[in-house]
């Protein structure tokens, strides 16, 4: 018995020993908690793509406002729809918004930041002034303006959030890339005759990737929050597509009848954002332990 107990303990201690990425990650509580919550979000989205306890759009007026039970774990809404199924499917929307808007920000922002860092001079100045300006313009205003011009809908909301991500990644990658450009191995690469583009792709980009990944998790969380706000206002996902933000908007009209309708979707948003923020914080500490000591 004692041998059996000792074995998992030694496996755990072997995994967490040392200074490698995974060993440090497994010792980091924020990373573990954030990783668990983020994994849960992904699982919800993946599982709901293939299976949900009930059809999230199917109405059943005989079961309106049913309390939580063995059949309906979180109860039902004002149309008799299964809340757990809607919450599960809503995760797909959040994941989609996060992935696409971060991808837009990453692809254009990192390219701009790397260009600014490689060219310096006027190009850098232009990219930085553009970023400064975007920072001065609140995200929600930009999103509202986009949606006002292009019309409400998930795609336009994602586009608006993605555009806002561009200067965030541009500024970050330019700063990180500038630090890499001063390193000796870059000088060696230049001496070897490599051009700016090749150095950027082969040396600068791989070295700034960890910082970008950390920021991507944070922007992912912000994207979920922004989309939920836009959907709450009726400017994001449109019915019947399940969306946590819109669920809250519908729940608000029914808070005197069933206040719990407003609890579950908000909790889903808050836990997803909390998970991604903790994951981002954890990754930052693991990648750059100096930052963790400073905090």
């Amino acid at each position: 018995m004692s041998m059996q107990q000792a074995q998992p303990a030694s496996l755990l201690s072997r995994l967490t020993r040392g200074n490698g990425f995974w060993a440090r990650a497994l010792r980091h509580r924020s990373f573990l908690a954030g990783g668990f919550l983020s994994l849960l979000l992904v699982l919800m989205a993946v599982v709901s793509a293939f299976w949900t306890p009930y059809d999230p759009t199917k109405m059943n007026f005989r079961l309106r406002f049913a309390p939580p039970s063995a059949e309906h774990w979180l109860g039902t809404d004002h149309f008799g729809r299964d809340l757990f199924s809607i919450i599960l499917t809503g995760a797909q929307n959040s994941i989609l918004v996060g992935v696409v808007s971060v991808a837009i920000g990453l692809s254009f922002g990192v390219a701009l930041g790397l260009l600014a860092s490689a060219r310096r001079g006027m190009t850098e100045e232009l990219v930085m002034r553009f970023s400064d300006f975007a920072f001065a313009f609140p995200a929600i205003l930009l999103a509202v303006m986009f949606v006002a011009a292009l019309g409400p809908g998930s795609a336009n909301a994602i586009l608006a959030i993605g555009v806002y991500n561009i200067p965030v990644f541009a500024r970050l990658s330019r700063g990180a890339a500038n630090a890499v450009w001063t390193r000796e191995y870059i000088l060696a690469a230049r001496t070897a005759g490599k051009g700016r583009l090749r150095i950027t792709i082969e040396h600068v980009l791989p070295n700034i990737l960890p910082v970008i990944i950390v920021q991507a998790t944070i922007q992912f969380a912000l994207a979920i929050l922004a989309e939920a706000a836009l959907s709450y206002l009726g400017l994001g996902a449109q019915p019947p597509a399940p969306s946590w933000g819109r669920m809250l908007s519908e729940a608000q009209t029914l808070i005197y009848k069933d206040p719990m309708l407003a609890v579950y979707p908000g909790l889903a948003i808050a836990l997803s954002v909390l998970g991604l923020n903790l994951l981002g914080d954890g990754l930052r500490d693991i990648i750059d332990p100096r930052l963790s000591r400073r905090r």
Partner: protein
Amino acid sequence: MSVFLFKRLLTFLVTLLAASMLTFAALELLPGDPALVILGIDASPDAVAALSREMGFDQPAWLRYARWIGGLLQGEFADSYTYKVPVWELIRDRLIITVPLAVFAMVLTTIFAFLLGIYAASRHNRPGDVLVMGFSQLGIAVPNFWLAILLIVLFAVKLGWFKSGGFPGWDAGFWEALKALLLPAIALATVQGAILARFTRSSLLEVMREDFVRTARAKGLSRRAVLWRHVLRNALIPVVTIMGLQFASLLAGTIVVENVFAIPGLGRLIFQSIGNRDIVVVRDVVLMLAALVVAINFLVDLLYAVIDPRLKAHDI
């Protein structure tokens, strides 16, 4: 100092100009006819053409932009398509609600953040610090409009202490109006307070490691005296910058929170105008909010120079 002021003023004006161009471009140059956006896709071509002429949409973009900005500089606003009054009248009536709401939320943010940040820093790595940081991590993750709904459920539906929304107007009395703004202000302040508390704590811890703090302690000053007399003053410099940015976020955040509480401020106006497809109002209100945000950032830059003597010396 004058060089610094000039540079900041120039940045302020250029950013304002860029904001106006972006707003104009987003709402009027994007694919699609603005008149069609206003009237909806079911409108007849004749009605669209007539509205285009009436509102000047058939003129070149640069001319429309010049007229719009020229008008604003002279204090002339276009008429709202829905309300049939100059947009300034709509903005004026709502500014006196939105700005006090944002200021109230900022006051609450500062109180939350300073109390929690100072408490956490003074108990670094002890249970109190861990608890405050955990709370702030949670505060950052909570959407402000969800918190607003929860506050309504608790204080209006369950306890009945507050109304679930609306604003009685300043004529109803200062305290009555302030009471109507309290829950929205708490909803806005909790998230920003959580962010500022973390920042205040980090900034305090950073300064606590400075040599002059060690010297003050070696001189015999108590931890509390060092914290209040030396650490706080120095730690506040970066905190003020964040506070400026946060005030800007609070102003923008009113767009969502005003809608939760049905408060007739700028946020609600912008939202209703989107629903009414009144792009003239959306354009002017977005620019007004953007101008406020840019102006706040400019003021923070100036304040930064006042409270950090090193910056003045560097730029003179």
